[in-house]
């Protein structure tokens, strides 16, 4: 990656991005696409001599609180968007994590980065993922052509939804230049139930009961080791409500009655509740050490205890479960053996995995995402050929040789 740092282009207009892509195309020089490059260690190292950054392409271009939409250029820091929303008492629905600590970087993420990586936090379980709220995009294809998909209205089924295709494509199908998101009111109050549970089985059962209740739970996590800075001993299940104050009080009361059979319950209100969810969002309780690898596994929640047990048996795995158990964060030794155990556990539970962070030696040598069935893989290659025929955008980011 250090080679790419030498040659960073950071255009401040969309046309500048298009020109940079056309220049790369003309010279057949692949580009590493990034926002602020906070996730350079993510997935696989990109094989590119030049870097195209959208960091200089920033600013909120449209914000209509009563229409629940915000548009911003791709290089806008997520923190700036969140601040603008907070002024109108609104929020990003998918609650994207702030992974500075996990990745040991100073700078915060850009909008293009969190959309390019389809990063969602705790609210994903009932509020939907980043990709569910991308209403429109502007982007530059690998041929240096600007294109749009979607728009700035909440309901739109006009034409093929390329917003979904580019969200989570990690810059391999186009360089995002502007994104429009659906947003929501922030909710007047928030509160959390913390349940001391006997083990992972019981914890997942408690979260399932909470998510299967009529009370509109907006976060459901399980911290096997607890989280000492917040005085939480593990294993502890966390259940969140965000709503008008009257509703938060009523719903926490109802849930408390329904869940007390799973373990001793305490209530976190206001600031402590927010601090707990910020920690879960940013995977802090995972306590991943710099030399370790970090994976994310996505499975049906009821499979989480078995997956967790298999991982713990295979290597000294530390875990953090979110999305009712549907998301398992794993930290452990950065070895091919632990990676094989992760792949096996995810596959046997019918789920997926991502090697989220690992030393380059490991991530360059192993599949960081599951293999796709052959029929889909060949469709994927044809789609890549449509959007980036010369293969100059983030080569090797998601899969070797693609």
């Amino acid at each position, binding site marked *: 990656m250090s080679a790419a740092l030498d040659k960073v282009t950071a255009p401040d207009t969309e046309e500048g991005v298009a020109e940079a892509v056309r220049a790369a195309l003309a010279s057949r020089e692949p580009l590493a696409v990034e926002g602020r490059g906070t996730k350079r260690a993510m997935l696989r190292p990109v094989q590119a001599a030049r870097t195209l950054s959208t960091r200089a392409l920033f600013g909120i271009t449209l914000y209509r609180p*009563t*229409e629940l939409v915000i548009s911003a250029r791709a290089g806008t820091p997520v923190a700036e968007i969140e601040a603008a929303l907070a002024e109108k008492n609104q929020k990003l629905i998918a609650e994207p994590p702030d992974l500075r600590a996990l990745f040991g970087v100073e700078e915060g993420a850009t909008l293009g980065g969190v959309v390019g990586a*389809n990063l969602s936090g705790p609210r994903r379980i009932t509020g939907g993922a980043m990709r569910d709220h991308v209403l429109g995009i502007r982007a530059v294809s690998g041929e240096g052509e600007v294109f749009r998909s979607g728009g700035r209205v909440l309901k739109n089924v*006009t*034409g093929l939804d390329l917003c979904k*295709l580019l969200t989570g494509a990690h810059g391999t199908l186009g360089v995002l230049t502007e994104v429009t998101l659906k947003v929501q*009111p922030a909710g007047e109050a928030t509160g959390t139930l913390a349940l001391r549970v006997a083990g992972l089985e019981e914890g997942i059962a408690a979260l399932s009961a909470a998510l299967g209740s009529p009370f509109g739970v907006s976060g459901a996590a399980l911290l096997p080791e607890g989280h000492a800075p917040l005085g939480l001993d593990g294993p502890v299940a966390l259940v969140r409500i965000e709503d008008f104050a009257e509703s938060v009080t009523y719903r926490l009361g109802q849930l408390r009655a329904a869940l007390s059979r799973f373990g001793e319950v305490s209530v976190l209100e206001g600031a402590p509740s927010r601090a707990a969810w910020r920690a879960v969002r940013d995977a802090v309780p995972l306590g991943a050490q710099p030399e370790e690898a970090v994976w994310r596994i996505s499975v*049906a929640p009821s499979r989480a205890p078995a997956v967790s047990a298999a991982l713990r048996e295979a290597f000294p795995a530390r875990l953090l479960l979110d999305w009712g158990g*549907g998301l398992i964060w794993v930290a452990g030794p950065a070895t091919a053996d632990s990676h094989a155990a992760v792949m096996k556990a995810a596959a046997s539970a019918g789920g997926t995995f991502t090697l989220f962070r690992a030393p380059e030696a490991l991530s360059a040598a192993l599949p960081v995402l599951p293999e796709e069935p052959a029929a889909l893989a060949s469709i994927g290659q044809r789609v890549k050929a449509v959007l980036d025929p010369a293969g100059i955008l983030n080569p090797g980011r998601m899969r070797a040789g693609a």
Partner: protein
Amino acid sequence: MMLADGTAQGHFGPMIRLPPPKPEILARRDAILADLRRLLPEDAVIGEAIRLRPYETDGLSAYRQMPLAVTLPRTTEEVAAVLRYCHAHGIRVVPRGAGTSLSGGALPLEDAVVIGLMRMNRILEVNYADRYAVVEAGVTNIGITKAVEGDGFFYAPDPSSQLACMIGGNVMMNSGGAHCLKYGVTANNLLGLTFVTIEGEVVRIGGQHLDAAGYDWLGLITGSEGQLGMVTEVTVRILRSPEGARAMLAAFSSVEVAGQAVDAIIGAGVIPVALEFMDKPCIHACEAFAHAGYPLDAEAMLIIEVEGSVAEQDMLLNRIKKICARFDPISLKLAESAEQSLAIWKGRKGAFGAVGRISPDYLCMDGTIPTGELPHVLKRISEMSAHYGLGVANVFHAGDGNLHPLIMFDANDAESFRKAEAFGADILKLCVEVGGCLTGEHGVGVEKRDLMVAQFTSSELALQRAVKSAFDPGWLLNPAKVFPLEGNEALAA
């Protein structure tokens, strides 16, 4: 019926251009039917004109075209077998669910085999702990909720056609409903699909987990209108039903004021589960039909629904009531009971039928606009109504800007239909002009195909066509829909 110039004939004249049929396919019709009968059980292949007739049109019944044949497979393997056969022989296919598409998405082609999934109607699995259901594509939308409501769960997207329309069709149209302001549209409520490519390969996309690793095929396929492949099984998220729900009605003296009230409600951080808007012609039509007690002197009316415990409903309705009171409402009615809620909804739910009673025929349009543009757009629509001499009633999902103008015309009068089509096209172009889009939930189909140039540049359309080609290089899957025929070499004779 196909006219010599390649236009399909409706019951009162030619109107939509379809790609020229492949003569060699038409010539081999009997042999194709015989082959299909070898691939599928005897009763799963239809070739007789009288039994093909029910498939000649869909919810956009002004357009009709008899297909070459209809197949009604019962399993994913049978669907794959038909697709593999059609692919090998260059035969076009038109997938079909219940045929309720309002954009002509399921309109057959003369040289196409229709693959109808209505016999794939089994619920395969329900899992409450993980909150999903696996169902075949031909299960009706309401069928999913019926299967789980006894246990207190429901499937959230609720198109008005939910008694008939099927989940496979919902996936392909990314259908919405009255409650999608809170619960999202179909795309937001899916976990996985069994997908069959045009080559007849069966692939599973997604599953019971939330995060796809790799490209978001599930997201791309949802709403793709049968252009990319066929869906035979769907894994949907199911949700626990709320404790209760109650509606209120608020009527205002002008469209502008009603729009301001909507902005104020959302601006105050209240997201009702439903927020429906009706204009005066629509109020009158619905009242005459349903006797729901709607205020006839109002220019605009909102139906607002909230959910939760009775105390929460009271809290939310009172907040909304206070907000509405700032805008001098003509009437404000809070339902006191579930029965009163039903009465408030009765007129709205029957809106299409009600307009059907005052006009022999109507076209239901489906653009979306930024909600702030509502007063301007409704004013322009009423000017257009005067210009074309055709009545129009507007219902509108006010929270999300999805507008449904119902244009009234007489289908026995070709001139009246031509005007209605032109009026509709003008409305949709207006939606695009003010920052919205051609379709919020009904899809492009054949109906809005030629208007796509109003929303997309030619290079954007070329890109979308190329993505379709990546799935369907021979353009055999539901061709003639979504993309303008102009400039499409894949469909030229």
